[in-house]
């Protein structure tokens, strides 16, 4: 069935396996009663269950939450956080500022754009190596196609302060030695040996840990949505508490103009 016949089938109702609420009586979440079967889940566990439909062990959930925790920086200079802070300074609402800041976190050089490419690369590369392929060849091929490898290198600094605490926790939880984590470090060695100066960063290690937890690229991408969230609210709050319009003040002279010289306006012909 296609075209209008297919669309006619969809009119007026939601057909779903994901859940529904029944006014005044109950709510169903992925086939479970939210208020009885799932009532003891904490929020992060429910969030992961909503994405994957699977349950994870306490150790796995602890590691997953720490992937958010260890990259939650309340630094209003960071581009995404700055959006939340500017919203506070401009006296917009907290929801608008933080929602926009989260949307902005879907960037190509950090955040969600890197996450999905990093985990896909690691899963694909592991399969390639498992099938008998050469890791060095795969790395070279990726660099040729993309000019960089998601999860390696960093826009504003070479060293990534998040790696040590994440690995320490993963080791403590017995989750540090999965095949994707080992692969992520092996790729780093290939890059360094090849003179590429692209060290493993947080995005690469987090993606490797998530792949070892069995997350697919899409599951990981959605899981990481709140990764920066905890650092954003403080940025909004402080900016909202300062005098309005005073955050990151820019004088006219801060605009460094590089365009056309002054010219008279003439109505187009």
């Amino acid at each position, binding site marked *: 069935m296609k075209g209008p016949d297919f669309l006619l089938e969809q009119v007026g*109702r939601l057909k779903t396996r994901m859940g529904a609420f029944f006014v005044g009586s109950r709510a169903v979440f992925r086939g479970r009663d939210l208020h009885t079967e799932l009532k003891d889940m904490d929020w992060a566990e429910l969030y992961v269950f909503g994405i994957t439909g699977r349950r994870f062990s306490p150790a796995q959930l602890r590691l997953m939450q720490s992937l958010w925790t260890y990259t939650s920086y309340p630094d209003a200079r960071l581009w995404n956080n700055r959006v939340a802070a500017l919203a506070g300074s401009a006296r917009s609402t907290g929801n608008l500022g933080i929602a926009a800041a989260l949307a902005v976190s879907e960037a190509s050089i950090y955040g969600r754009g890197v996450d999905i490419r990093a985990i896909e*690369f690691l899963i694909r590369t592991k399969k390639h190596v498992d099938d008998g392929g050469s890791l060095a060849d795969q790395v070279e091929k990726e660099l040729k196609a993309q000019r960089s490898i998601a999860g390696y290198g960093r826009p504003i600094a070479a060293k990534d302060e998040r790696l040590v605490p994440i690995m320490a926790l993963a080791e403590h939880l017995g989750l540090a030695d999965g095949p994707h984590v080992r692969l992520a470090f092996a790729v780093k060695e290939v890059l360094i040996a090849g003179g590429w100066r692209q060290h493993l960063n947080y995005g690469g290690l987090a993606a490797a840990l998530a792949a070892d937890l069995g997350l697919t690229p899409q599951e990981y991408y959605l899981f990481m949505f709140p990764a920066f969230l905890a650092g954003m609210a403080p940025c909004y709050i402080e900016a909202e508490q300062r005098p309005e319009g005073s955050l990151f003040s820019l*004088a006219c002279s801060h*605009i460094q103009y590089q*365009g056309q010289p002054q010219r008279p306006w003439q109505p187009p012909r």
Partner: protein
Amino acid sequence: MSTENPIHTRIWREEPESDNPFAMRTAYCRGYDVYGEMLGQSRWVEMLTLLFRDAAPTKAEADLLEALAVVLANPGPRDAAIHAAMCGGVGGSTSASCLMAALAVGAGQYGGGREVLLAMEAWNACGTDLDLWRQRLAAAPPEEVSIWPAPEHPPGFDPHGMSTPTPVRQALACFAHLSPGTRLPWLEKHRADLESATSLPLSLSGVAAAALADLGFTPEQGEMLHLLLRLPGAAAHALEQRRHGYKKFPFFAVELEDDPAREGT
């Protein structure tokens, strides 16, 4: 005044008032005095074009962009982006959130900004060469790992369509007549050939993409303009539903296929 950490731009220059370095005395857009000369003399679409490129549009370009703005202003309340804006309006959400909702939904590959970008990339690759278009439309979309879902239909065509809708043909005819470029007239002439190659009818996104390409915009600029120009309808419909209230707004029936209550009985 320190000018460390400046903003680099070739779009905008400002001169301050003598008593306050933060108060603007004059602003120049691409070298034109905005408040001193453009104000009262330039059309909105001329300003809009100028923001994206150095050269002011010709009259023909401005006329085409204005016609496109009329076509895109309101996709109507059945459109998913407008529906999203109305979901904000009906619950009394902030005005900005209604527009953010329209932008988020209207950003996609089915009738949204991303579809326009992909269609404009196709124009850049194929131009007005029918053989190149046929090859591209016959080929599977490139596999790319991205935040965007995998494309499910050739951009610029309606995957649920049966024939070219009247407004699509009307818009194409109008734009082809106005266009200073080559793509719109070519598209009007070869619409049936392309539709035959895809077995799908042309969509309004496809016509918009051709118009934006004929206006000389890059795919990224076209995506932005498509997002921007569809906001008026989202705003108006959101406010209308805010007035009407939720009791007059559709709340659909649900068929829960995995219901623990049903399994237990």
